[in-house]
């Protein structure tokens, strides 16, 4: 039996297909369309890629910021729960899940049995998220994919403020004028973002194994900065972007029926 999970994020829509044993396919598309249309398009891509029809899918489960707008989903769950499900399936020893998306950062604490025990979110500030690093890339005139490798080449790091993405922007510009190397500034940006994220991991108690997921997990510079600052190793799965979508698909496979919610 096949289950699909769709994760409508702030910047991209991810979809994954789960057959009860393994992930049989996944898609990730950056989108500027409204959530429902984007989700439809990504879902169609997923089915086409795997070569199956809609009726072959038992259940479609939505998650992420735009989950409520996915009109064709059979149900929805929070991204925290789906992240926990997906991460745990990929790494059965996982106790802490760090999910860094474009606009949000979440850290989930799991019980030894793998259920969600607690979570911490970034509040209304984008520092400590993917868009913070993207913003830095714009000012450094570096493609965002190169930010990580660039920072790894740096010796030390420039001081960049972590309190506010807007303040950090002016710091980056003045560092450029001061003649700092781009590599050191890039390293500073990653450390600034990591400071915020480590704060959240700390609130959840630094319990190993820690797994890093979300789009920003593909950035080796951020992963390194996080490991250094947290002082514990982080595991990054192969395709970290689709873990939450995979979790949604797993959630669909677990849910027999939706819990009766109040008629509101």
């Amino acid at each position, binding site marked *: 039996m096949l289950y699909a999970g769709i994760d409508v994020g702030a910047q991209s829509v991810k979809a994954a297909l789960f057959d009860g044993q393994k992930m049989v396919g996944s898609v990730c598309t950056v989108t500027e369309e409204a959530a429902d249309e984007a989700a439809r398009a990504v879902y169609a891509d997923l089915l086409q890629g795997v070569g199956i029809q809609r009726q072959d899918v038992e259940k479609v489960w939505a998650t992420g910021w735009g989950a409520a707008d996915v009109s064709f989903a059979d149900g929805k769950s929070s991204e925290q729960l789906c992240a926990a499900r997906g991460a745990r399936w990929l790494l059965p020893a996982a106790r802490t899940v760090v999910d860094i998306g474009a606009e949000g950062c979440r850290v989930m604490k799991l019980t030894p049995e793998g259920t969600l*025990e607690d979570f911490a979110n970034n509040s209304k500030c984008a520092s400590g998220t993917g868009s913070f690093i993207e913003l830095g890339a714009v000012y450094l005139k570096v493609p965002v994919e190169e930010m990580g490798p660039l920072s790894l080449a740096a010796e030390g790091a420039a001081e960049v403020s972590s309190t506010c993405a807007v303040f950090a922007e002016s710091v980056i510009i003045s560092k450029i004028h001061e003649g700092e190397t781009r590599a050191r500034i890039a390293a500073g940006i990653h450390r600034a973002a990591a400071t915020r994220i480590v704060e959240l991991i700390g609130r959840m108690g630094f319990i190993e194994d820690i797994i890093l997921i979300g789009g920003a997990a593909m950035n080796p510079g951020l992963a390194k900065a996080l490991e250094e600052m947290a002082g514990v190793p982080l595991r990054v799965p192969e395709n970290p972007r689709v873990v939450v979508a995979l979790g949604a698909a797993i959630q669909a496979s677990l849910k027999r029926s939706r*819990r009766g919610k109040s008629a509101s």
Partner: protein
Amino acid sequence: MHEIFARYAENRHEAVKKWKQETGKKVFGYFCCLTPEEILYAADILPVRITGTGEPLQQADLHVPPNSCAFARSCLDAGMRGMYDYLDGVVIPNSCDIIFNMEFFWRTLVPRPTKPAMIAGVDIKPYVHYINYPEKITGREVVPYYVEVLKNFKQDLERSLNRSITDDDLARAVSAYNQDKSQMKRMYEMRKSDPAGLSGYEAWQITYSSLLMPKDKHAGILKGYLDELESNGHKAPEGIRIYLSGSAMDQVNADIYKIIEESGGQVVSDDLCVGTRSFWYPLNEELPPLEAIARRSLGTACPRSTVTARIPENRWTHLLNTAKDFNIEGAIFYVLKCCDARLGEFPHLRDKLKTELDIPVLFLEGDYTSEGVEQMRSRVEAFIEMIEG
């Protein structure tokens, strides 16, 4: 929902103005659940709690620093904009650090309807009354000291109003307050069942209107309404049983109750000042009325930042008892930014809840706007889903 409670919750200013016009009586505004409002009631005055607007500040930001409580700033802004022009006086107790500053701000910045009556440099008919609530609320000297403070306040009122407030007036007020408190307790009792007898939002509307209506009238309407609910077996939508803790919960952020309900939860009790703290502590009718009022005010478990013990034991005791009596499954702390009193006690209460009762806790940082409340939705959903397992 009873239409009177809903009317007060939806447009408090219009409702109070209408009452004032119909009765021709005086209305005083006050801050904080520590206020000895019973004395106002005894003087035939309607005490109404001052709340803010949640709108961007228009005037207060010139006077109050931005890194202070958004609720207090918004209240002052509403006053400066003339939204409280129907008040005949304002009472401000020495409660948290920002509220006690409101005495100065309100006196100097908010237009008053009456002229000061200056005698030898002293305004003998003040518009803003200050209650010097003691810093230290325990110890032998506290009650006699505070009774003295209340006596002075009573005399100030008598001078301002050209009338006397007798012990009979005070006893009448104490009894009216107790009647309303017992109906409010009864309303909370009904929420102990599963599903609760009333939803969190309904309970909030009833509590909020109790801070804006004369207590005898409120008690009467509430009694009738609860009788009706009981006889037709009314139940709130089922949900994970939530304890709500936090800062001032007024019409700006009360949507949090609806968001919790829509996410599959139901608020069944709280420790809010627009909540249990406004009625939980009955007045002892055996005591001289002023002493009974003083003891009620001193006994109110408020997290104001100026208390001597950083985390008073009574805050935890209330939480512990409520968690057990109301079968709490999760606690949501919805605390406004810069609410020092709340933020100071939060880590302590959170850790005790988790370790002693194994109750999960969600912390939400409010900014006193309704959009800010809406942004909490996804975290509330995730929290309730986490408890559902």
